[in-house]
């Protein structure tokens, strides 16, 4: 059959549309004039390309102190939220998979509803909870909020994995005399690991990128990377550093994705050989 040129052309156009801003992010990391965000200096002469933002990031320059602090805070919160939501998500997925009771339909509704609610509603309702309880907003409220919205995504990812899980393996373990804890740690957990890792990666990216929920519950003075950047966009002379940092993050994730692809390919080859 004749290839459809129209749809292929559309796809190419859409890909260009998606990548133009990404290209800009990379280019902006080399801007010398951070105040006007341009490659030209105040008198209109081309000021060249600079790598000073990268060297400032790597030498830990004082002018970027607050930015780097918010970046490390984001990493910390994302890491902790990932671990906590993976633990909660694994138990939840196991319970949802194993039992079909009234309790589980309530459980399922509670897990599913945050997925269809816009972020801002989760943010405002958590803010209301903290206001009603008189809690001061800060690190802990951000962490709790991030865990709350990550759990549902982790549960859904693990549940998808559990669908092709052969439950007879667990029964076989029981028949061979393994207790429930032993079965969980030595049989179910290893099989579920790819699902948990995928859910954890999703939770990590969601948490590190979240600006809506965080901006409600961060309180004064505590900023994660996204909220700090959005406050910086109004007036800052160090904006190119944000783009340089984003370029580094993009590079890092690309390398990670490439590595995971190579590892996955190696594993399937190993399985095939077996």
């Amino acid at each position, binding site marked *: 059959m004749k290839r*459809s040129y129209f749809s292929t052309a559309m796809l190419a156009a859409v*890909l260009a549309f998606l990548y133009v801003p990404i290209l800009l992010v990379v280019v902006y990391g080399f801007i010398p004039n951070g105040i006007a965000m341009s490659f030209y200096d105040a008198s209109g002469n081309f000021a060249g390309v600079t790598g000073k933002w990268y060297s400032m990031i790597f030498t830990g320059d004082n002018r970027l102190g607050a930015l780097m602090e918010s970046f490390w805070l984001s990493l910390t919160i994302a890491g902790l939220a990932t671990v906590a939501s993976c633990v909660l998500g694994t138990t939840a997925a196991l319970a949802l998979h194993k*039992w079909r009771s009234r309790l589980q339909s309530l459980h399922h509704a*509670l897990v599913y509803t945050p997925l269809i609610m*816009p972020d801002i509603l989760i943010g405002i309702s958590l803010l*209301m909870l903290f206001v009603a309880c008189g809690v001061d907003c800060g690190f802990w409220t951000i962490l709790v909020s991030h865990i709350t919205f990550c*759990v549902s995504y982790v549960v859904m990812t693990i549940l998808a994995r559990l669908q092709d899980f052969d439950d007879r393996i667990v029964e076989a373990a029981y028949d061979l005399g393994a207790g429930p804890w032993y079965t969980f740690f030595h049989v179910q957990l290893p099989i579920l690991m790819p699902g948990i890792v995928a859910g954890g990666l999703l939770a990590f990216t969601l948490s590190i990128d979240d600006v*809506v929920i965080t901006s409600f519950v961060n309180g004064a003075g505590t900023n994660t990377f996204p909220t700090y950047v959005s406050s910086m966009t109004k007036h800052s002379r160090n904006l190119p550093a944000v783009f340089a940092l984003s370029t580094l993050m993009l590079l890092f994730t690309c390398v990670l994705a490439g590595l995971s692809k190579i590892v996955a390919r190696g594993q399937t080859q190993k399985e095939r050989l077996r």
Partner: protein
Amino acid sequence: MNGRKSSGKAEWLTTMPSLAWLALFFAVPSVIVLAFTFHGHTANGGVGEWSLSTWRELVDPDYPTIVWKTVRISFEVTFWSIILALPCAYAIARMPKRWRSVVAGAIMLPFWTSFVVRVFAWKTLLHPDGWLQACYLTWLKVCDWSFGWLPGFLQRFLVWTGFATAGHVDPSLATILDSETAVVLVSVYTFLPFAIMPIYTAAEKFDFSLLEAARDLGATNFYSFRKIFLPGVRQGVVSAVLMVFIPVIGSYVIPQMLGGTECILIGNKIFMRAMQNRNIPHASALATLMAVTVLVPMGAAMWWKRRQEARDRRKLDVRTNRLMTSGGAS
């Protein structure tokens, strides 16, 4: 093992952590939000006595306008996303297998850059001196020109619903930054991958030899796309619509950074009321309104899906019956 009915200590132990967490941090806050809407607000930013004053104040003509504007922009973003996503999903699904995952990955890759950073990159792209400003002015002229061709009642309807503005736009005043167009454009940019993915997943299962059959029987490309491909992937289209429509209803970062004073949506109003004016009851009432705006299309989609399934089942029954009776007659 699967689907066991009995509930015991093991079930409680496994369920409790996540159930308690979500009950405490999702269900209880939702109830608090609902409860706050039935309170007045005090001058110092606190929550006042029980009263209906908040709901009475919501009738203020400002709020329904904002709700409608949010819904309208969500419609526009959803429309453009689906229009762009359909041919893309089709093109990816028709590719050789090993290319598919590469292109699908390439579509999701922009998400690994921070959302705020990407929106900020757009902000510089939309600068009044940039080339997109010139495109915007041309686009306005094209819209103006084609608007003049529409019949009068349609013109009035579009102006009344806000999809079009009455009168000519002054090119010297129209900037793309701080306009509704900027918000729609960047929202489409942000949510397009979420529209492409579900349609692509549905298109991958689609049997493309049906299209060849249609062509052999004399159908044009567009006709077979409309009559065979579209119904074939409708499940994917429905979930794509929801994946775009719901987050746009709740978006507030994009209008805040790119919409200026022109484009204030419910999300921005909630943020203003909660964080700047410290009017907690008003923010809660707006959040309740938003939840309703989200749950209505969600419920409609579920109802539609159930009805479609019931209809398919009935059709199958009728066909089997006919087959069996005709088989019996011959």
